[in-house]
């Protein structure tokens, strides 16, 4: 629903971290979005294309969206469990657990720049 502003967030984060010259050589952005981030990868792609077309920059850059499943950590069993069907339990002891350690990501994970 707010994918356009998130795309703007991608550019802001990148422009904070890299120089203009670097960004001119950027070819790929790898985004990680957790299942709990409420971001729909297809909508994110569409928003990215819309923004890059309108702003006439980064038009050649490809966006890759990786969806990260939800994981919880159980301190009793000392293991991470992947959550299925949004039933928040430890896979080993089967106790309820909402100590989420993965699945809320919404960040630029990697950026690829043209080699010389």
């Amino acid at each position, binding site marked *: *629903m*707010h994918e356009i*502003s*998130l795309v703007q*967030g*991608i550019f*802001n*984060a*990148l422009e*904070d*971290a*890299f*120089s203009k*010259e*670097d960004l001119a*050589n950027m070819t790929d952005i790898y985004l*990680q979005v957790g299942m*709990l*981030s*409420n971001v729909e990868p297809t909508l994110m792609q569409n928003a990215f294309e819309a923004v890059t077309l309108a702003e006439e920059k980064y038009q050649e850059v490809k966006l890759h969206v990786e969806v990260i499943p939800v994981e919880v950590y159980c301190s009793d069993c000392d293991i991470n469990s992947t959550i299925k*069907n*949004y*039933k*928040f*339990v430890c896979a080993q002891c089967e106790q*309820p*657990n*909402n100590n*989420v350690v993965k699945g*809320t*990501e*919404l*960040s*630029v*994970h*990697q*950026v*690829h*720049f*043209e*080699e*010389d």
Partner: protein
Amino acid sequence: MSKVQKSSKAARGTVTCDNTTMHLLKANDFVAESIRNKMAEQNILLINITSSAGSGKTTLLQETARRISDKVKMKILVGDLETERDANRLRETGIDALQIVTGGICHLEAQMIWQGMESLDLEGVELLIVENVGNLVCPASFDLGEDYRVTLIATTEGDDKPKKYPRMFLTSELMLVSKVDLLEYLPFSVDAVVADARDINPNIGVIEVSSTKDIGIDEWCNWLLEKVAEKQKAKEEAAI
């Protein structure tokens, strides 16, 4: 793998980024943290009320204001895409309410709360309630610096909501099942909705309410007053 930092050296190949510095909601989370600090300094309890559109947030808050505004100094910030209607309804109860018009944005962001706080006189205020935009999706992702998030689910909505919108229920302290006076007319099971919510968040509190038929309102108000007292206690302890 190299960490990102602006350097004179040109970036080439694949660079792995630090997930915190490259977090897309970093700006929001920074402001939310500032709000949290400011609220801690002034011992103001900040509650973020969320739900789908039409589940009865404003009606509940009108009733809440009538019930407790003589016991605790409270103000309300209310978000909507357009119009001043909800703030007007809340002001009818005699309390100070400020409308945040998001102009089409489907959620409130921390920056809007910060600006709202600047327009409200918070001197002596003990409870600030934010009534979020009616939407169970985006508001779940935006930290507003609140102490507690409270989510309403109306009996008119269907009892399968929690698993459809897991993040909202995962991050809520309390679920208010609203419009329970209509239960006899609707295929809605309170047990089913509670079980669904507790699959996601085993610790979520539940209160059944009806604002128009005065069911559970005292219990909800007592919950609020208890949380306000806890926040005020922190001030007394700091003074010792």
